[in-house]
């Protein structure tokens, strides 16, 4: 799985102005100044001494000077001149500059102990000695120097003093890709991380500074800066070389305790690739489900549950495109090609205000930008899938592309499945293509597209298919160093269809699709190190075809039926204030206002007020014309989080969130079935609402090499849809008659111990969580469990996951993955009886029982080919075993009527040891 990149340039490349030092000297001045302005005075003095004056003309032009000096030094002259005024001066002998200020004295030297953490001796510090920086001035001249050389930031002639803002991009030196979440800091107070585009803004005091740049997998960098005014510094970082003798780097990789965001999980593709998965293919979603607070109802199930949220309460974004079905092949593979993914971010607690529309979580998946320097690629061959990935420059250093594609040959696998699936067929494909283009230093343009397609038939003549189709364009513009905007527009589509042609008379095609056009403008404004603002607007135009059922072929007598299309507009406006009053405390306050309009044309059924919404109580329909606003829902959403440092390695965080969701997944089963449909809120279906409070303690141990955290949360949801018994959801023209509104409460505890780097890396997580629902509305008629709380389908209280990776040497590593969780709830038939003339089945309370617990262990070995630089291609093997213990974990428990008896069966999808092998080529 893992592929190596072989680049042996162990250095940094940075861009700066070369500088010549000069010595201070004393000059004696003789002159007579009679009624001259200060400006004139400075000009005359500049002619006598090799010093330059820096001042604010507006502050000084009202002063008239009368002065006679003889044999005085520069400072003597100035002292004399400003006697009795509030004008102060500072002489910088090194740079031969005189600063003139009023009221406030400028200090050009820092207190002696400010750099006490930084070791200048060089001899002891490998990093400093190894590093080389490239300096680039406007002429394009490139020189090389060690980082001990001074880099000037801003213009000497434009010194402002005080705090200045340093901005720039951190990129990978070999590929030109931006590095996300790289730490940029001078000390523990002046610290920031790069954003999605590798961009950073750092406020630091003017003067001489040591700037550190760190990113996982990259060589750390330190730069000496002479900071004059706001400026720019781009850093190209080199990948960490694996040397035979391990270098222990214990740097401040402490973003987990520092980040004000709670419940944020960030994983890079390198982390993801270390986790063994079935068939050896790195799987984004499967790794996500191993994180604390994230669960899945079964191994072959689409979707995941975050902190007791249902599968449809997760917003899954792939390069800003909404993905409605994130998996292939009944959920056995995630729909994302691991070779194009850069990293994933999962927000499960404090969801930033720029995201909206889902209650539980946001999973933001970003693909890498293509290599801007060389064409490279990888190819992988596995038992079930093959992958290809290519990237490279279109215009060197300006424009690059990235292409990823996967396909499958899974039919043989279907024959290994249980008898129910005999004669089944399955295939899937996905394609990612993206272009990134740098117009100039403040304008970037990104195009990205995604296509996935699944087709399968389950043991009979019926073919199922589904597809995600997404395309978007993003423009990022830096208005200034402090103010930036990102504009995205895109089109997302998800559709499925089912067809059957075997019986010509009954041949049919049925389907569903959802289409949305998105428009989003987001801005961030960085005021200073204490204040920053994010704000923006977004809007989504939905069009859904909830279902059609058509005859297929000329002989079919199937009667065509279609549920009327739905359309709506969901808009949001948000504002976030990030406030850091002091280095210990950081507060993020966000407010989002969302607005949802259900639009015509549509027919809306009316029901007897105060009576259950049932077919029997329907009293008519209202017909709305095209573009009519049928129903509007709106409301504020609060996103608040706060972080406080108790010590440099210990922080506490708290967060409160409220969210609204206007789109519902209609699924009468515990999983996302291929035939589940989405439904927009309408006059009869209220939007879901949720709120969550959470609290967490974060502690880093052993020089930040081990991260630990404990988080607790309590959440409430309202108007989540559950279903009446026997509800049928497809082609249902009045879906509101088959649903019940529930309110839910969820609570839990999450413990994580993580070692992100080193020879042995991985994490152990434990989650306790409950999610209980209650059919609260007594007027709805049929109630579930007598209106008492009952566990939701995906309520799995205990969950333990261990993921470990051990690098024996540079060519061989082993990974182990263990998962245990409580079985999911199930409603069991408990008996039969006769009533009203027929035999009936007696069921237990809803979800009163559980299927057996789940336990699985996976093991994988990664073997790299030789590391010769001269090779054209490099290869690696992944060999492993999925479900090492061969435990028959139940996927589903079901009952069938056989010869007048009702027998129970449990079905395991991967009920055996599954070995796998995968071959990868990197070129």
């Amino acid at each position, binding site marked *: 799985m893992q592929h190596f990149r072989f680049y042996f340039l162990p250095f940094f490349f940075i861009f700066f102005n070369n500088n010549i030092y000069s010595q201070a000297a004393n000059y004696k001045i003789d002159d007579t100044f009679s009624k001259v302005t200060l400006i004139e005075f400075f000009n005359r003095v500049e002619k006598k001494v090799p010093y330059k004056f820096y001042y604010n003309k507006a502050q000084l032009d009202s002063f008239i000077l009368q002065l006679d000096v003889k044999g005085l030094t520069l400072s003597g002259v100035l002292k004399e001149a400003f006697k009795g005024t509030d004008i102060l001066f500072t002489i910088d002998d090194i740079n031969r500059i005189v600063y003139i200020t009023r009221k406030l004295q400028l200090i050009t030297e820092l207190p002696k102990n400010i750099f006490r953490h930084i070791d200048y001796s060089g001899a002891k510090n490998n990093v400093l000695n190894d590093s080389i920086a490239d300096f680039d001035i406007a002429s394009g001249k490139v020189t090389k120097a060690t980082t001990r050389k001074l880099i000037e930031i801003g213009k000497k002639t434009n010194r402002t003093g005080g705090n200045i803002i340093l901005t720039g991009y951190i990129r990978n030196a070999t590929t030109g890709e931006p590095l996300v979440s790289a730490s940029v800091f001078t000390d523990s107070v002046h610290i920031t991380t790069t954003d999605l585009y590798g961009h950073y803004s750092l406020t630091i005091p003017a003067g001489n500074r040591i700037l550190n740049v760190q990113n996982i997998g990259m060589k750390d960098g330190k730069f000496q800066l002479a900071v004059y005014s706001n400026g720019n510094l781009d850093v190209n970082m080199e990948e960490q070389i694996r040397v035979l003798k391990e270098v222990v780097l214990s740097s401040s990789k402490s973003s987990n305790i520092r980040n004000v965001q709670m419940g944020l999980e960030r994983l890079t593709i390198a982390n993801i690739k270390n986790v063994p998965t079935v068939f050896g293919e790195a799987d984004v979603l499967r790794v996500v489900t191993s994180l604390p607070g994230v669960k899945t109802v079964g191994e072959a199930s689409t979707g995941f549950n975050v902190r007791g949220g249902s599968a449809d309460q997760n917003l899954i974004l792939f390069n800003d495109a909404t993905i409605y079905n994130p998996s292939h092949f009944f959920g056995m593979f995630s729909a994302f090609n691991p070779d194009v993914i850069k990293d994933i971010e999962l927000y499960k607690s404090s969801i930033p205000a720029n995201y909206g529309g889902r209650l539980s979580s946001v999973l933001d998946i970003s693909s890498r930008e293509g290599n801007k320097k060389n064409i490279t690629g990888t190819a992988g061959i596995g038992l079930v899938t093959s992958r290809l990935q290519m990237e490279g420059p279109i215009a060197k250093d300006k424009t690059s592309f990235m292409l990823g594609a996967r396909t499958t040959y899974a039919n043989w696998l279907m024959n290994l499945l*249980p008898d129910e699936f005999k004669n089944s067929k399955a295939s899937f494909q996905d394609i990612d293509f993206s272009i990134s283009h740098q117009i100039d230093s403040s304008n970037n343009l990104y195009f990205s597209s995604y296509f996935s397609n699944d087709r399968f038939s389950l043991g009979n003549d019926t073919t199922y298919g589904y597809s995600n189709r997404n395309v978007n364009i993003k423009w990022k513009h830096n208005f200034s160093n402090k103010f930036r905007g990102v504009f995205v527009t895109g089109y997302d589509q998800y559709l499925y269809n089912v067809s059957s042609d075997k019986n010509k008379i009954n041949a049919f095609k049925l389907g569903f699709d959802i289409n949305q056009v998105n428009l989003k403008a987001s801005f961030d404004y960085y005021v200073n190190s204490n204040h920053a603002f994010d704000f923006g607007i977004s809007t989504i135009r939905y069009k859904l075809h909830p279902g059609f059922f058509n005859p297929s072929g000329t002989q079919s007598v199937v009667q065509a039926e279609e549920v009327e299309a739905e359309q709506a507009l969901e808009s949001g406006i948000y504002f976030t204030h990030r406030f850091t009053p002091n280095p210990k405390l950081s507060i993020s306050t966000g407010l989002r206002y969302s607005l949802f309009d259900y639009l015509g044309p549509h027919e809306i059924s009316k029901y007897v007020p105060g009576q259950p919404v049932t077919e029997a109580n329907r009293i008519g329909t209202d017909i709305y014309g095209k573009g009519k606003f049928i129903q509007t829902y709106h409301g504020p959403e609060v996103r608040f989080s706060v972080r406080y440092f108790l010590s440099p390695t210990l922080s506490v965080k708290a967060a409160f969130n409220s969210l609204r969701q206007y789109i519902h997944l209609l699924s009468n089963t515990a999983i996302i079935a291929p035939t589940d449909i989405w439904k927009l809120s309408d006059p009869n279906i209220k939007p879901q609402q949720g709120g969550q409070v959470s609290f967490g303690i974060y502690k880093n141990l052993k020089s930040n090499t081990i991260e630990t955290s404990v988080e607790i949360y309590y959440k409430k949801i309202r108007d989540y849809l559950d279903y009446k018994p*026997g509800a049928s959801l497809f082609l249902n023209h009045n879906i509101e008659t088959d649903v019940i509104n529930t309110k839910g409460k969820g609570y839990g505890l999450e413990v994580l111990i993580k070692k992100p780097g080193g020879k042995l890396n991985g994490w152990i997580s434990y989650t306790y969580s409950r999610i209980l629902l209650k059919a609260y509305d007594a007027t709805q008629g049929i109630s579930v469990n007598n209106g008492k709380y009952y566990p939701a389908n995906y309520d799995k209280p205990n969950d333990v996951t261990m993921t470990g990776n051990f690098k024996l040497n540079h060519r061989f590593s082993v990974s182990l993955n263990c998962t245990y969780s409580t079985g999911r709830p199930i409603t069991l038939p408990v008996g039969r009886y006769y009533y009203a003339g027929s035999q009936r089945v007696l069921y237990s309370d809803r979800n009163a029982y559980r299927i057996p617990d789940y336990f699985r262990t996976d093991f994988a070995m990664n073997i790299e080919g030789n590391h010769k630089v001269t090779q054209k291609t490099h290869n690696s093997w992944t060999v492993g075993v999925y479900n090492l213990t061969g435990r028959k974990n139940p996927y589903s428990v079901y009952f069938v009527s056989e010869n007048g008896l009702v027998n129970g069966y*449990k079905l395991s999808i991967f009920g055996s040891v599954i070995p796998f092998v995968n071959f990868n080529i990197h070129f």
Partner: protein
Amino acid sequence: MKKLFYILLILFGFFTGCRQRYDPPLNSLPNSFLVVEGVLNAAQDSTTVHLTRTFKLEQTATIRTENNAQLTVEGKDNTISSLTETGNGNYVSGNLHLNPNNEYRLRIKTTDGKEYLSDYVKVKLTPPIDSIGWDRSNEGLQIYVNTKDPLNATRYYRWEYEETWEIHSSYFSYFVYENGIVRPRQLPAENVYTCWKYNNSSDIILANSNRLQDDIIYKGPITLISPGDERLGERYSILVREYSLEREAYDFFELIKKNTQDIGSLFSPQPSEIRGNIHCINNPAEFVIGYVSVSSIQKKRIFISSAEVPQWGFSFLQGCPSVKVALNPDSVKLYFNNFNLVPYDIDPPLFPTSYKTSTPDCLDCRVRGGKLLKPSYW
């Protein structure tokens, strides 16, 4: 080599079927739960309560009646009257003389020492059935009911029905074949030409008038008789019983109706538990199925004769052969014993040379499930 073999065995040996028997962990549940069916009749008529038990999934389906229980109807005004057991889990009372302004509950003491009690229920009076009618279409004959409550107080309705229909054999039988001997049938005592068949509703039939201003049920569907059905071969009768329900009782019946018999495949929908208004006093957590309601019961009967449904498409002759069997012992033995044919007439009538024979179901209406006794209302 041996090592390689074992490796291959490990690699592929585990790819076996993944479906296993699963016995749900229901140990804590007793074998069966009480099922209570019946309406306390508030009209001047008899009341029947039927007690049965649930049975396990893996048991063969049988009606398990609950016998020797003691049932009493208790009023809020401390009136008590008891029901008498008549066998087969039926408990009956004559006129209970229930007061429409009172509330009543049912107490059940079973032989295992457990005691069950329903909630107090208000008496609901059922408006009379206006009419029962039918519409004929391609789908068949739809029987419907019309009813209304001028007081707008009923709103929720449930119906049950009893069907009776007359059937005929295909041929009139003049002979009996028994113990290898053919003898003339004694008429009319041994007439097996005309029978009556009975059927009770097995669906839960519900309707409400919530969406109407007035409390009217217009053409509430009762049952659909498919085209060509035997029921309308000669003459058909249906007795419809109407009950008025409280809202909670209506919900209870609707839930039973919605809980499908489809119990689970991979993607099957969620069923739901059934709860009525009866509770076990000794063990409140125990399931008790049933909803005791107190209402008057209204009845109405109609008749439909085959002449009213021309070209119905049913004939009592259809599918019935008439085979002539020569009048000699060998033929008789062969056909009657081995081919299961039965004589019904002789041919020609004066100097017979052969028997006219057919299969038993074409000659004896009892074989088709009929009963010979003519019902009183026929």
